[in-house]
């Protein structure tokens, strides 16, 4: 089987990789690029642990093929903070204890970031539905939802 050559931008850097036709973005990131911040909880699109942002939209990296991504702009958890400064969502997840084991956290953070870019002032219900594709077995979601609402408020304040 021959491989495809793909050129992408990942977290602002130009990244080239080669992959088989059936290789998912998740496999490319984790296995070939050694970017293990994106997690694999199911490999079938059911847990959201692998959520990354491709061309501005949140996607399950396990459902996207690497070969489809030539020219794509990909954002992963490794690029969420700016230098040594954590993103407000990352800060609020820490302040609200929105993680226990933390395996779901990168996926939740990306999904929440995508939500707040589209809807800077979500209600609790909107947050819950936006995050409904991301499973967390530890927290019962309470502190995650609070962290997202609080981050949204803070981000609104800093842009106004």
């Amino acid at each position, binding site marked *: 089987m021959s491989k495809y050559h793909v050129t992408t931008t990942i977290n602002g850097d130009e990244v080239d990789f080669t992959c*088989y036709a059936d290789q998912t973005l998740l496999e490319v990131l*984790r*296995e070939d690029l*050694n*970017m*293990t*911040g*994106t*997690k*694999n*909880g*199911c*490999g*079938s*699109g*059911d*847990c959201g*642990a692998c959520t990354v942002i491709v061309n501005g939209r949140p996607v399950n990296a396990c459902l996207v093929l690497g070969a489809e991504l030539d020219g794509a702009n990909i954002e*992963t*958890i*490794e690029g*969420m*903070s700016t230098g040594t400064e*954590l993103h407000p969502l*990352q800060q609020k*997840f*820490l*302040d*609200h*204890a929105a*993680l*226990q*084991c*933390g*395996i*779901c*956290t*990168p996926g939740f*953070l990306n999904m929440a970031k995508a939500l707040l870019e589209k809807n800077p002032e979500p209600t*609790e*219900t909107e*947050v*819950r*539905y936006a*995050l*409904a*594709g*991301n*499973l*967390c*077995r*530890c*927290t*019962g*979601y*309470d*502190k*995650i*939802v*609070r962290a997202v609402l609080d981050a949204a408020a803070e981000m609104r304040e800093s842009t106004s």
Partner: protein
Amino acid sequence: MNEVKTTAKTNFKWVGKRTRRPDGPDKVTGRARYGDDMVMSGMLYGKTLRSPHAHAKILSIDTSKAEALKGVKAVVTHKDIPDHPLLEPPYGPMIADLHDISRNVMAREKVLYDGHAVAAVAATSERIAKAAIKLIEVEYEILPHVLDPLAAAQPGAPILHEHQFTHGVDPKPEAPSNVFRVVSAERGDLEKGFADADIIVEREFRSEPVHQGYIEPQALIATASEDGAVEIWTTTQGHFVIRGLCARLMNMDMSSIRVTASEIGGGFGGKNNVYAEPVAIRLSQKTSRPVRMVMTRSEVFRGTGPASGTYSRIRMGAMRDGTIVAAEAEIYNQAGAFKGSPVGRSVDSFFSSYSIANAKATAYDVCVNRPKVAAYRAPGAPMATMAAELTINELAEKLDIDPVDLRMKNAVQDGGQSLNGAKYGRIGLTEVLETVKNHPHYSAPLAPNQGRGFALGYWMHGGGLSSVVANLLDDGTVAIATGNPDIGGSRSSMRVMAAEELGVDLELIKPIVADTGSMGYSHLTAGSRTTFATGMAVINSVREIIEKLRALAAKKWEIPVDDVAWEAGQAVTQRDGFEALTLKQLAGMATKMGGAIAGHSEINAGGAGAAFSAQIVDVEVDPETGFVSLKRYTVIQDAGRAISPDYVEGQMQGGAVQGIGWALNEEYIYDDKGCLQNLGFLDYRMPVASDVPMIDTVIVEVPNPNHPYGVRGVGEPPLVPAPGAVANAVENAIGKKMGSLPLSPPKILGTLELCR
């Protein structure tokens, strides 16, 4: 809303404060390394071939085609895993029988469930490994299977283990049975008790097995070197336990195996065991290369432990004034393919919140053709508790007594006993029940089609073996190493306790989880024991450092050590003319004045004691669809003392939501051949954010006298009453009794339609 109600000392510097966790930044940036985030140079990829049958004899295994595939470096079967004799009685509460474990990690004579491991390969890529297992040819003779615990316990059921005769019954049975053992506990005179009762309620319940549902699948790397040493990197709740099991199973010296625990992506009891570790050791020994083995999600469902599905019967009798005078229950726990369901805990869980003069509980450990059950957060408790709590609520209804008042009247008191005979010290049950009674949620109005549920849960915590090493560094910072994987923020609690003892800033304490080569034995991060037991070892270790620092200050000042005290992070003396020496100053002197300063502690902690969690739930049932929506949820629990309240609340909220899933959605679906059909999170439906409301919490603090800060375990109690509380709310919403979990829409609709 989250509150903390405390009756005890509160002038702490760090205990009880909301602080950021030390491992936080790594976990929000993707830097933290979990089981599957490690690579080693020259690493091979392992893959497991699993049984497609629920029950079958293995006639032959031909691995030659797989071995011939380019890139395949080794293939193993049961021949590569040493066999061990059956464990002999007496059996303790926890059974680790190497005979069974060797067969669970690799099927030997028979496959006993769909998904049972049969062979494994190591290859130069995942792709080749996957292709290779398809080339392994296994000849099976299919046998009849049994999935239901009640059916499996009947004479004539297909037998999983011909060598198994029910233990704990008289006379000793002559025919083999799927029932491994029957355990019971009783007190008083049941017959008399029921004769005294004015009212008796009898019920029965069924429940499906549920999976722990950790989001991170099992993953590990094993490396064997030519001199016999083995290193393992794995996601586990107890790397010392993995070391011990691997050494015993593979007939190796314990000291030749070193295990490092990765960050762990959830466990809930499901990562207390070995699965692929021994297999990976063997593959690595055969190839002299590191071997990584990662389960897929469907392998997690097919091959790793759920909690037992159950069948239970219960009968309780009370007098008109509300005194519960008699209680009798039995429960059949699915053990899965091998013995070892939590029967003792089931027995203890029915009635131990109450002082009932005449009570008996019995539990059956029943083998069925399903994966071997593993612990799941308060193993054995939730289903027994549901049976008792729903029955008590029905008694309350019939007696026209408020359910909380009825519990108050019968609540076990300080100094009482559990049904298994465990003595209670100071417990917070009365305080918890009073808090429920006064909570606004308990008396808030309900809308049409809504119902409120209530249940109480009890759990007796474990203490056990913990080891800690604390090293004071030259600059006055302190490295704390424990042997307990941190699942839900324990490093944060360890840091808080160390800083509190030393009287210094949190930032000066750096907690880590060390590997098995670095320190004494530490038991699992399980049984809600870590903050209690390992925390005590942290406190001991830091106190040893303080003693050494006092001695150092005394030496420096040339005064007796008894004249030196440790206060607020410095050595001080009442004597005139000496200025306090800070931790930092003393740390800098240490190496010049005798040597580095460290403390360590290896303990077997007792006195963890019991804790109680009470839950109030409001649901709304759609009469057209049978769909249940959660409207309001409150968890009230005695935590003894919350070292890190954020993480105590997190445990309470997470446990409650797992209980919601257990009650409403989660179940295993098998086809008529005994093969598991719902192999993913799409069909095994765990609660998502839009399924649940905020989970309100009230932490009640009745300090545990057996811990320096009053800590009780908090992880398990919140799951114990949750399924019962939710089921009770559904019953009250529809005005019908429900006897079988999950309370899925078709089941509720069926009940409603029957009654229309």
